[in-house]
């Protein structure tokens, strides 16, 4: 007996009432199952087969949850823009069955079926896409969503990168889970090589003290434990906010006290709206900041907000903004500089944080 029996009773009561209202329709119900589209049937069957084969693999995700996915992942649903970008960067765009309203990169991601917003997706819509694998990110999605999906028996793999290196590792792991391990290793190696090159170029450049603005009103910046703070370090900068809180809310007074060398904002929409130096010059409070007076305000692509392969693009972009001199050198005498750098690179011991993961 137990809950199954009660379940039946509950269903029976509802059914009785339903039947009372639509007795005619009930009789038409039988063939409806058969009318289920072939594609859906096939997916269902393949899903069942994978379960029985034990061909699936079990991995532990970055939140410590055990996830079992079929050996051959065919349908992926991503719940965060960074995972969507990662999937495309791995060349798995074909396997992406759906993503969220917030997934806008690459443009093809916008054409995929959406399951709702990243914070409040529809569980039914996700279920309706018949995914073998759902990808989520701790810093973006809600725990409740992940728990609910797991409760429904859907494989959810969650990433939780807090550093640039962690992001690369997360990409490699996602690639592994999605059955594209080799492509993942290649991708991560390429990204790491770009980071190494950047490291070499910036070797002589002084650290720039940066105020990174996540949100302007209310003013929200980044804590030291976020991957954005780490991205700034790779780009030759340092966040002026020293806190363990991930997304600290600041007063303008604090910014005045800290007097950052540079103010960075992220987002394509800001670029489109023309937010930037001139705009900040007319804002009361802001306009008297030294950084604003010197025109040290820049809007960069929103890739920096996302722990995906685009993060490396954003790091390079920030490096160009913060250290234009380092890159001027390169364009004049690139070859020599790089070789110099490589030699330099070999002799200077890399800090733990900077040691590449894909070697």
């Amino acid at each position, binding site marked *: 007996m137990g809950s199954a029996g009660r379940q039946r009773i509950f269903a029976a009561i509802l059914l009785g009432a339903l039947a009372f209202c639509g007795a005619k329709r009930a009789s038409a*119900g039988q063939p*409806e199952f058969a009318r289920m589209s072939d594609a859906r049937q096939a997916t269902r069957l393949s899903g069942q087969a994978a379960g029985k084969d034990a061909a699936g693999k079990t991995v532990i995700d970055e939140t410590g949850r055990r996830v079992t996915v079929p050996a051959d992942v065919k349908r992926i649903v991503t719940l965060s823009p960074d995972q969507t970008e990662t999937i495309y960067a791995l060349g798995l765009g074909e396997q992406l069955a759906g993503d969220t309203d917030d997934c806008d990169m690459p443009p093809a991601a916008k054409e995929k079926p959406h399951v709702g917003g990243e914070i409040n997706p529809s*569980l039914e819509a996700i279920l309706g896409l018949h995914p073998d694998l759902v990808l989520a990110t701790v810093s973006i999605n809600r725990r409740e969503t992940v728990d609910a999906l797991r409760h429904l028996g859907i494989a959810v793999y969650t990433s939780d990168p807090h550093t640039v290196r962690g992001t690369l590792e997360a990409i490699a792991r996602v690639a592994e889970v999605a059955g594209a391990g080799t492509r993942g290793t290649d991708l991560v190696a390429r990204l790491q090589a770009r980071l190494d090159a950047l490291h070499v170029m910036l070797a002589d450049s002084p650290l720039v003290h940066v105020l990174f603005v996540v949100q302007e009103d209310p003013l929200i910046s980044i804590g030291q434990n976020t991957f954005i703070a780490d991205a700034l370090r790779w780009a030759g900068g340092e966040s002026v906010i020293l806190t363990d809180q991930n997304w600290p809310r600041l007063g303008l007074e604090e910014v005045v006290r800290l007097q950052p060398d540079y103010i960075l904002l992220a987002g394509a929409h800001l670029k489109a709206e023309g937010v930037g130096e001139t705009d900040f010059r007319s804002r009361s409070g802001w306009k008297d900041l030294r950084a604003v007076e010197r025109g040290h305000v820049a809007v960069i692509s929103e890739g920096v907000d996302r722990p995906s392969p685009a993060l490396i693009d954003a790091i390079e972009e920030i490096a160009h903004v913060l250290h234009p001199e380092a890159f001027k050198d390169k364009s004049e005498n690139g070859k020599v500089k790089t070789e110099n750098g490589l030699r330099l690179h070999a002799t200077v011991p890399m800090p733990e944080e900077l040691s590449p993961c894909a070697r």
Partner: protein
Amino acid sequence: MRPLTPRRIIAICGLLCAVLFGVIVIALRMGAYPISLPDIVMTLFRGAIGRKDEIPSEFWLVIFGLRLPRIALGILVGAALSVAGTGFQALLRNPLADPYVLGVSSGAALGAIISLTFAPHLLGVIQLAAFIGAAATIAVVYFLGRRGGQLDSATLLLAGIVAASFLSAIIMFLLTTLSGRDLRGMAFWLMGDLAAPPPTEHVFIWFESLFIVFLISAGAIYTTASDLNLILTGEQEARHLGVNVNRVKLVVYVAASVLTGLAVSVSGAIGYVGLLVPHAMRMLFGTDYRLLIPTSAIGGAIVIVLADTLARTVVAPTELPVGAMTALAGAPVFIYLMRRRVR
């Protein structure tokens, strides 16, 4: 007004149940996953006769895993909040009284937030913490609301409002110092959210225990219905007629608070329902508590199930918090009823 006979109570409740049933059918039918009505009937039928394996697994998940639990939760929460609101309004003889105003919802929310901050990984802790938060708030407000050994309606209401804003301030403080992820989850929860399925494998046992708590508390309030009718005419008069006013107040206050803690612990802080539904029912069916309590329960269930169905369909596939929907859809209906009555 016609005299209130048991027959009339049953007739009106039956009518409301029919409406509730209609709303349940709509709620079962609507959703991001397309299932036709015959398929729903077949799924229910096969589930009822225990032939689960003949149902396509996704139909089973959508109907039994997502929609039915959500409907059941909506019924429970709506009924609990409405009965609690009815109780508080009778108790305080103040039309503004509801779990939200009295600080009980805020207390429960604070309990939940504290548990999320310090023990986010433990199952079911949120429910327990919300319940403790509600109970503690009740105790404090009840203590503050006494004047000269008597429960004073105005003082109690004031104490509730002060407690509510004090607790909200603490909640804001905690939310500002929490990390981003928790903040977003909690923001949803504070608006009221039915989206997450019950956090346990034993869904039906879980629902059963919730419904039993609901029935006991609502039943306790119902036993005082006749006394509440007398108190409505004035406490002194009720005393003269032999009503133990303090005992009635205690029963109603505790039971209504238990109902609030129950609702908040499973769905977050859904506002408006406890205020709106009892008034609407009063306007429709009169002020007799013997009729008002059951109609409020069913009416609350109707409102929440309907609001939740709208919440998950109007901007589908994205879902709105149900609390936003109750306020958005409820306020105009309420104003209409109020205006009609004035005329």
